[in-house]
């Protein structure tokens, strides 16, 4: 190895370069090893709880958690051996044994299929390690957004950590210990009575669907396949990237884009949950104009003529300076763009704003 190069480790017999400070997990993933994890979320401080990511390091008796172990030069690491794969399967079978079910509807949340995917990959034997179940679902928490189905919880604490580390809300925490551990707000209350802002981040990082998107799950029985369309949240100027979840023609949910440059998987309550208006029954399906004080359906041409006449009347009487436009946060970006274009290029004004201050 020449001295001008950076440090390397030996990963499964192959020399791999790394940046100082990188963990074995980061290096292994970059080198396309499929190291399983359940408590890991790249946005969070590594926790070292699930122990699925264990790897063998020469000179260390027990396997080490790769997510919490920083590489040191020359380390000899094995990311997959029969012994490691055996431990991983045993851990996954232990986890499976504490839950009601493994497969959950993908509408539950962005990461909700992680555990089920590992269960399939490791071909878990049903009924292995059967025994008491650990979770206690909060059926009493009837908030409209977040299903707290802790029967499915595997105590990875990603929800608690994302709430603290990313959202800064510290609304939930780990209570009790060992097998009796539960996820709870202060004094065991409801989310609405806690510091929770219903940002949904806990839902989206949960690897089992224990925390699930209640609004999306309303569409569970729709027959069409789930599709996702990348977009940007309309509600404010942060510009969070989202995946609009649809079934057929219906918008059924919104999920944050984990790789969204502005949000890295975060959303606020509006971006996350306030999409019902899109296909709401009350929504106008045709333009309306006022006749004799009554709003009545009209053609687009008529409506646009009326709007143009209105603008014209104001400009004639008071000059263009009297115009001001405010776009709705519920309008699509394209519409907002057109409106500002109208104001700026059309009227030569900068009197343009948007209602959203999320």
């Amino acid at each position, binding site marked *: 190895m020449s001295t001008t190069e950076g440090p390397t480790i030996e990963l499964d017999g192959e020399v791999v370069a790394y940046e100082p400070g990188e963990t074995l997990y980061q290096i292994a993933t970059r080198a396309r090893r499929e190291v399983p994890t359940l408590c890991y979320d790249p946005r969070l401080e590594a926790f070292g709880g699930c122990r699925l990511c264990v790897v063998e390091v020469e000179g260390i008796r027990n396997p080490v*958690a790769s997510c919490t172990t920083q590489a040191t030069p020359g380390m000899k690491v094995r990311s997959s051996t029969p012994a490691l794969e055996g431990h991983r399967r045993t851990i996954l079978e232990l986890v499976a044994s504490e839950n009601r079910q493994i497969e959950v509807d993908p509408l539950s949340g962005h990461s909700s299929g992680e555990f089920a995917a590992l269960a399939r990959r490791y071909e878990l034997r049903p009924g292995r390690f059967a*025994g008491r179940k650990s979770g206690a679902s909060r059926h009493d928490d009837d908030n409209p957004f977040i299903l707290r189905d802790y029967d499915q919880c595997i105590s990875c604490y990603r929800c608690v950590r994302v709430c603290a580390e990313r959202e800064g809300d510290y609304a939930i925490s780990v209570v009790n*210990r060992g097998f009796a551990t539960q996820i709870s707000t202060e004094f*065991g209350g409801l989310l609405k009575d806690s510091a929770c802002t219903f940002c949904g981040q806990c839902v989206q990082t949960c690897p089992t669907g224990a925390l699930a998107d209640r609004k999306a799950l309303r569409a569970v029985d729709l027959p069409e396949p789930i599709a996702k369309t990348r977009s940007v949240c309309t509600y404010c100027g942060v510009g969070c990237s989202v995946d609009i979840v649809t079934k057929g023609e219906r918008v059924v949910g919104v999920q944050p884009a984990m790789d969204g440059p502005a949000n890295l998987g975060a959303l606020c309550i509006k971006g996350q949950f306030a999409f019902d208006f899109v296909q709401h029954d009350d929504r106008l399906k045709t333009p309306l104009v006022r006749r004799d004080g009554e709003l009545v359906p009209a053609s687009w041409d008529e409506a646009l003529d009326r709007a143009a006449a209105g603008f014209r009347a104001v400009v004639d009487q008071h000059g263009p300076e009297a115009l001001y436009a405010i776009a709705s946060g519920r309008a699509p970006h394209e519409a907002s763009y057109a409106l500002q274009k109208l104001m700026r290029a059309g009227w030569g004004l900068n009197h343009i704003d948007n209602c959203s201050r999320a």
Partner: protein
Amino acid sequence: MALATDDQILARYRDAEAPLLPLLHAFHERDHCLTSSALRAVATALRIPLADLWGTVSFYHHFAREGETRSAPRICTGPICSLRGAHERVAAMAGEGATAMPCSGRCDQPIPALVGDRSMTFAGSRLVPAPRSPLPAPNPGGLEECVFAGIRAPDRGTMAGYLASGGGRGLERARGLEPAALLDELEAAGLAGRGGAGFPTARKWRAVREAAGEAKVVVCNADEGEPGCFKDRALMDHDPLALIEGMAIAALATGATLGFIYLRYEYPETLDVLDRALTEARAAGMIGGAFEIHLRRGAGAYICGEETSLLNSLEGKHPFPRNRPPFPVTHGYRDRPTAVNNVETLCSVAPILARGAAWYRGLGLGGQAGTKVISLSGDVLRPGNYEVPLGFPLARLIHDWAGGLPAGRTLQAVTMAGLSGGFLGAEDVAEVTLDEPSIRARGSFLGAGGIMVFDSSRDMVAVAREAMAFFAHESCGKCFPCRIGSQRLTERLGFESGPTDQVEWRREIDEIARTMKATSACGLGIAAPLVAESLIRLFPGAVTEKFQEREAR
């Protein structure tokens, strides 16, 4: 006397080091539970998110929550007390709100209980104040001792009595030595940790000394949560100044300015002893000034004896163990270089300094350095704490020193390292010497030196189930293999769930045990399976009998 107001309590500790536990204890004492308004006040004062605080409080066994009371009796149902009918006692006192508590470190005495801050014991079916913890009996072999050498001197717990019986000479010598020379002396003595892991003390202290950062810390681990261990209690109750002198020497060696004693909740009288001793030590100039020691009380969690969990507990965080590296020697209490040491380790330091490395090293047998206190309990005539030379035959300790088993009984098994080392059978006991190499060769370890003896009338499967239930109860819940594995092993040893076919049953236990040992995040989960494994290895017949009983049902 009027009760302290919230503000008075908060003012007393808000700006202190490690304020959370003393604050919670102060409210707990005043209100007999932790009320939600107290928790809100603490959360605001210490700027801890309320949900976090709620979670942290719930981690500890002994904090009564609103609607409960800390004066409800807690009765020890540790392995030895269980054999003596402790569970029946709890059931009988259910009307008074009695609950079970894990081994509370009095296995050499009648079943203990806690009521509020008093150690109690039974007189008939009534609870009465318990006597002080017994003084260790004079060494039955007439062998030279280290930590017990001065403990029986009159008034040893007072500064006058301590100095009159040879105390203080270690610190005096240490003050005249360069830290490097001090560390060399300890290294030459071969002193290793007595809290379980056996890490060389000089090496730990040197690492702290050499770590970057000025404000170094010494923590005495007095959590003694391991079932079957009650040696640290005896040392602190009867020779508290030896511990403080040891910590003062540790401060000289490491450069520490701040010290803590983290004492388990279940030793309320010891808390008073240490408090008085610290006051005397301050007055005598043993500590204070350049090195101050704060006494902190745990709240009932075995895992808080694990050093990184202990540090989180001191810091007021959720007491999960930390990921290592970094180790406490570089990033300990509030990320400061920290030496965490066991009580017995620290108590050995002053005598070593006073009498020299060669003397200490020479106390051991067969190439082993020094001595070890063994807490011996269960089916022996004279349970208690015995200081043995390392390398001493276990059979001699049990049969000669402790009077052997009650007449007509034979030895079936002993536990090692309290409970964490699992079981050794009669054959092992006949051959083994009390040192790590000998015990590790038999698949166990000496650890903190608790040994519980079970005669042939005992149902070892039931003992193993209770032991595993302890580990499951104390598992912190951080890592999957231990959190779920310890629960599943308990269920299997109790035949509550799991395969009905014995071969399949053993296969499941093997798999869980193997994975727990290899992948658990801390020593609890790594050691816990030993109980199940050694049971199956040593007593396959007893296991088969359980299956036959089950089939007959």
